């Protein structure tokens, strides 16, 4: 019956949105509470000026004046890293689509019910996409509270910056779903997917640090570069990057479903 797996997944995992969103948002709130006024940020920017430019580029700061605004500081100290945590959640969620239940033998029972493998995957992917969105919204709630009680900020930018984590999270979710459907063994899928998240971050980091060299090409193959959280407050939404991340995520979802549809279960 349609929708049962979707609602069951949401019903049993919606609390994760509170835990993960709360944890991430609390971190953002603490950062905002640490900057009572813009003077502090200017002092901080002067400290950063002594750092090598390549290092600052690696952190997504091309102009030190970016850090002197509350939004820019939040992008540098919060959005540039939070995608790693969102990536970690997306990996866990992606494994839950098939790999975890297959590894535990639960899929044998679930797939003896009148549902197709495709339906199972689509409903779970949709449910976890909704949970990822909820995590982002909960975390935004904390940031908004910080902006209200600590330092005035552009709420629109704050909201857009939070939502900007969604496309990259869906890419990581799609990658993990594909790997989970392909390799069957949960621990192997976990290792590959975690590697994708971390290597993506480092490719972006190293590529940016060596922006003048050939190594910069690494940023082209890193989902983290297309996320661009560190520069978001100055660049705004880069719709091309959003489209690429969502398209890659969708391709990976479809590939995962296709692989899972064709192979033996539970061996």
């Amino acid at each position, binding site marked *: 019956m349609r929708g049962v*797996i979707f609602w*069951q997944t949401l019903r049993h995992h919606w609390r994760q949105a509170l835990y993960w969103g709360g944890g991430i948002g609390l971190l953002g709130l603490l950062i905002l509470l640490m900057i009572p006024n813009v003077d502090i940020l200017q002092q901080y920017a002067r400290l950063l000026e002594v750092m090598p430019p390549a290092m600052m580029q690696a952190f997504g700061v091309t102009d030190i004046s970016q850090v002197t605004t509350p939004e820019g500081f939040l992008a540098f100290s919060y959005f540039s890293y939070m995608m790693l945590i969102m990536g970690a959640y997306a990996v866990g969620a992606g494994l839950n689509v098939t790999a975890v239940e297959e590894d535990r*033998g639960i899929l044998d029972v*679930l*797939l003896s019910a009148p549902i197709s493998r495709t339906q199972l995957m689509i409903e779970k992917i949709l449910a976890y996409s909704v949970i990822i969105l909820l995590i982002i919204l909960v975390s935004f709630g904390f940031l908004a509270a910080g902006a209200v009680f600590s330092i005035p900020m552009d709420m629109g930018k704050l909201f857009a910056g939070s939502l900007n984590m969604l496309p990259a999270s869906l890419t990581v979710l799609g990658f993990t779903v594909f790997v989970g459907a392909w390799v069957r063994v949960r621990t192997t899928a976990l290792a590959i997917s975690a590697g994708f998240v971390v290597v993506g971050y480092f490719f972006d980091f190293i590529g940016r640090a060596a922006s003048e060299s050939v190594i910069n090409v690494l940023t082209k193959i890193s989902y983290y570069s297309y996320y661009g959280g560190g520069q978001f407050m100055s660049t705004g939404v880069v719709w091309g990057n959003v489209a690429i991340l969502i398209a890659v995520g969708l391709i990976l979802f479809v590939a995962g479903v296709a692989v899972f549809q064709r192979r*033996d279960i539970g061996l």
Partner: protein
Amino acid sequence: MANNALIQMENLTKVYGDATPALDSLNLTVNRGEIFGYLGPNGAGKTTTIRLLLDLIRPTQGRASIFGLDVKADSVEIRKRIGFLPGELNLWDRLTAREIVNYLGNLRGGVDNAYVKQLAERLSFDMSKRMRTYSTGNKRKLGLILALMHKPDLLILDEPSSGLDPLMQQTFNQLMLEAKANGQTVFLSSHVLNEVQAICDRVGILRAGKLQAVETVERLTHVDFRRVTITFRDKVAPSLVSGVTGVTSVSADNTNVLSMQLQGDFDPLLKAINSTYVQDIHIEEPTLEDIFLTFYGGQPANHREKATV
């Protein structure tokens, strides 16, 4: 397809990697309304057959149909009418049995809660506990409830009574006989002959991935022999019992121990050893392999599977 055939397997073959086929050119028909026992030692290919029927794995060769529908192309349609109990039931540890029943029941468009309650009562099963707290036997009961709750046309049960105590085994047998009376068909795998003897109409014997025979239970279980080991106080010669009516395959493992196969009554053997001092007599029921080989000719294998009659 014959009119009465509910499950039909044609040349069904499954090979994992480059290894020996787990299932080799299986041709088998299970009729509507019968209880069919699928017997074989561990690793014979019983679970592989069941997984193929449920479309959890795909055949290397051949095809299978249930209700006249192809198990791969029409798997969703088929599974609406099937109740399945896996050999090892793994479910969500943090959910209670009731939550699991509701979830899997909702996937089937809902189930009759009164019937679920009735099943739980008959199996003496408490539905309020979390899955992780259940013993093996209780997990088995939950598995039976999940398989039966929607009153399916076909029950596919993999080693259904393993883990059930003797009392529950009786309840299980009653449930199966009631299912048959209701027109349901049961396909159950087992490596325990007396399990299938009690309820099955026909039995298929699988060995090393090949179907060796399909027989009625009556015919199969009329193989009347036992393995007998006698320990004497003093040294005896095998000739003491060889030649006795019903005694074959006499071997002397020790100077005062004789092993043999006995078919028929005990009396001739007891009379033959009457003049000796017997310390111990050990009687072993034949294994599936013994029965099979005796039934179809040949000698029982030395290697004994863990099966009982």
